């Protein structure tokens, strides 16, 4: 990894010197360092590693000059903070894992080095990074984007994916095209409706070294999509198909995969309605068939459940199940007009969201072969079949109102069904049925002082029982002071009715932020976009420094 370091540093330093002397180009970037000092706390299951303090850090540097841009990212894990992917210590270390250069003009864009890319909705290709998850499946290779005609946008990529400080074993190649009908045909450019089509094809090559099974070395996937809008109505749909791809995810079965997603929405002033559905079967797609966890995903199945921001409404988050799932989501957002009975002087907003995910129906391929048996076709399923097992359901209502120039509030109610066994990989755990309520209040005490409070409660008879949370945050210009208590007061075992107290303060100014906190964090799971990682319980001091420039 270290040999990547010298060239990009010299390049950017050189360009920087040039930029300063001749006022050519611009350098932008950002930096963040998160450090934690760990204290052992046997009651909550928090451990202190040999390093005592662990540190995740990164910095991006981007140089732009006309049609040319280049950049690199430094990353340092000394050593990787607990809970982030690091099997075998594979993530520990420092170096430059990401560097790139791009040239673009009106019709052509060429990138060499690392890049992130998404085809359509990501059903067969999406690479991105998410620091909160320790997720990064960047490509290292080449990407070409061409726009040969108005409304026609073509992309081609080839590369290997990032595997921590190494690269995955599979070579990924893909092409994608977007065809925007209203731009292609100038006569309908200003029509009240807009129509677009798209298609993509992705293939991965990985050598078959298995002496038992005849594994496919070249696995292809194709997807087609449509996008239609008329007035406030919008429809997005995509279908994807992948040929046989035996992997650790599907237990080395040879059936192909399919996925369909449909997203319809309507919006006008003060009103928004969204209806979504998806059906997925055997669509895990990685550039190493044996990869596990969040490693080397080529695609990402979009989530259709709400990402909650409050601590207790996000207590039971949904993790997308590429092996098979059917889901539906509906959301209505309405803003009551100011001056009406419900709208009041400052306006009121109401949002109702419902989502439900179930399994797909699977049957044996024959009477002798169990469902999912290794080295077989696996199972049969009809397209868009829906099983009886509920994976997840979330009904939530959010009511936001500003009462005066100094007081505003948001009240949230949530009702959750959470299939613990499917979503946490266990077998005998009860399905969790939970209610959650949140009151989020902000008081402007004076021109320079405000108080933000969150009162949260989660009620369930399963898992660890009831929780309550209180958070107070005082803000003055550039500074904030926070104290929060997560209390597992309903735990069936009185020994574990723990208070998870956390206090801290921070400073914010001109893109620079420093935050220091001390306290306990409960064990849990955090998800972004349906991708999750386990968060271990911890006790200690946390420091975050970030900056943009």
């Amino acid at each position: 990894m270290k040999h990547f370091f010298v060239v990009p540093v010299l390049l950017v330093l050189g360009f920087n010197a040039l930029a300063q002397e001749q006022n050519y180009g611009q350098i932008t970037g950002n930096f963040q360092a998160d450090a934690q000092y760990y204290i052992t706390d046997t009651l909550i299951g928090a451990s202190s590693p040999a390093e005592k303090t662990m540190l995740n850090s990164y910095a991006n540097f981007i140089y732009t000059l006309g049609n040319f841009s280049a950049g690199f990212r430094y990353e340092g894990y000394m050593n990787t903070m607990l809970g982030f992917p690091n099997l075998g210590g594979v993530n520990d270390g420092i170096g430059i894992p990401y560097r790139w250069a791009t040239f673009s003009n009106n019709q052509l864009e060429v990138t060499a080095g690392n890049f992130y890319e998404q085809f359509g909705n990501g059903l067969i290709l999406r690479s991105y990074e998410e620091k909160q998850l320790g997720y990064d499946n960047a490509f290292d290779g080449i990407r070409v984007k061409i726009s040969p005609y108005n409304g026609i946008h073509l992309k081609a990529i080839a590369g290997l994916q990032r595997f921590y400080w190494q690269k995955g074993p599979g070579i990924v190649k893909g092409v994608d095209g977007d065809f925007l009908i209203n731009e292609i045909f100038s006569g309908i450019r200003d029509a009240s409706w807009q129509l677009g089509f798209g298609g993509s094809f992705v293939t991965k090559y990985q050598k078959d070294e298995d002496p038992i099974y005849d594994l496919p070395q070249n696995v292809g996937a194709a997807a087609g999509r449509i996008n239609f809008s008329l007035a406030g109505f919008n429809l997005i749909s995509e279908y994807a198909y992948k040929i046989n791809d035996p992997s650790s995810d599907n237990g080395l079965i040879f059936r192909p995969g399919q996925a369909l997603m449909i997203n319809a929405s309507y919006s006008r002033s003060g009103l928004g309605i969204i209806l979504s559905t998806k059906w997925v079967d055997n669509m895990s797609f990685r550039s190493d068939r044996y990869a596990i966890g969040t490693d080397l995903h080529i695609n990402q199945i979009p989530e259709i459940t709400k990402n909650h921001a409050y601590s207790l409404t996000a207590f039971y988050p949904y993790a997308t199940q590429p092996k098979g799932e059917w889901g539906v989501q509906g959301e209505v957002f309405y803003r009551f007009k100011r001056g009406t009975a419900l709208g009041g002087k400052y306006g009121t907003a109401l949002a109702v969201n419902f989502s439900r995910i179930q399994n797909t129906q699977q049957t044996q391929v024959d009477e002798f072969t169990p469902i999912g048996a290794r080295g077989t076709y696996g199972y049969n399923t009809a397209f868009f079949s829906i099983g009886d097992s509920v994976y997840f359901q979330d009904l939530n209502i959010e009511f936001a109102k500003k009462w005066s120039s100094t007081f505003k509030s948001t009240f949230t109610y949530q009702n959750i069904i959470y299939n613990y066994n499917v979503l946490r990989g266990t077998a005998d755990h009860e399905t969790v049925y939970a209610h959650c309520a949140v009151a989020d209040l902000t008081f402007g005490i004076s021109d320079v002082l405000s108080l933000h409070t969150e009162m949260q409660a989660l009620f369930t008879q399963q898992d660890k029982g009831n929780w309550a949370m209180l958070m107070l945050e005082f803000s003055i210009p550039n500074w904030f002071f926070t104290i929060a208590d997560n209390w597992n007061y309903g735990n069936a075992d009185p020994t574990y009715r723990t208070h998870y107290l956390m206090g801290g303060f921070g400073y914010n100014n001109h893109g620079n932020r420093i935050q220091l906190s001390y306290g306990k964090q409960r064990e849990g799971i955090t998800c972004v976009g349906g991708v999750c990682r386990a968060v271990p319980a911890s006790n200690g001091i946390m420091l975050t420094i970030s900056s943009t420039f």
Partner: protein
Amino acid sequence: MKRTGILTGIVLSIFFAGCDIVESPYLETDTPVWNGRKILILDFTGHMCGNCPSAHRTLSQLQENYPEAIVPIAVHCGYFGVVATSNPNQPYHYNFNTGVGLELGGNGFTNYGYYNIRSQPIGVVNQLIPEALSAHDAWAGNMASYYSLFPEVQVQITPVFDESDSSINLTIDVTAQIVSTRNLNLAAYITESHIIEWQMDYTQSPSNVQNYEHNHVLRGSFNGTWGDAINTANAAITRNQKFTKNYSLKTGTDWVPENLSVVAFVYDSDTKEVLQAEETHVIE
């Protein structure tokens, strides 16, 4: 519209033409040639790891397909390997942990061992480096890369069980098959099979299985986790040169001598590649 459909079909056919659609029975038709190299597989497992029996079944399948070539060791360690209770009537009371196992895989709380074990099941095939950890579905392919190689050394184990004090006295002969200057280490472990104890198994309902048969369980070592150096400083090794080591170990009180095996392996102490492994029952 029909023309567009035909065109789309043609384009997709061209794309998918380069892909490998495999037909049933999905099996390799070529049988690899075995030249005597035995392959060590360390399976980092735990009795409270519900997905670990899948790895145990992978090992069993490999042993069925390549009975002469596979030398497995189940290393109980990590978060899922802890003793859940001291009450012998409760599940997961049995202590499978060993000093060697914890040094290799950690206890999952205060340390993660040499291999930095963060999730289970996971294992290594013929490599004593953390970077070589892989999911159990990959073990067959990893094994195949060594299967047809000629062994650089041969290992012969001669155990004698002394009933008077329940100890095992051991002679291990390592014979070089080729000339080399490798730095070599010899490690000798003891394993036990047919231990009937609790195991979590997510393929079963209920998943807490009381009478699970645990095989190849690491019980300890004759000469420490990393064994003894038998060739150092890149000294020249001649063909047929023999290295002999003698060891002794007192068995545990609940070990069944008839179910014990000695596993010895020789590895390159620089590259950490296992060059040859051997397994012998203590009592034939």
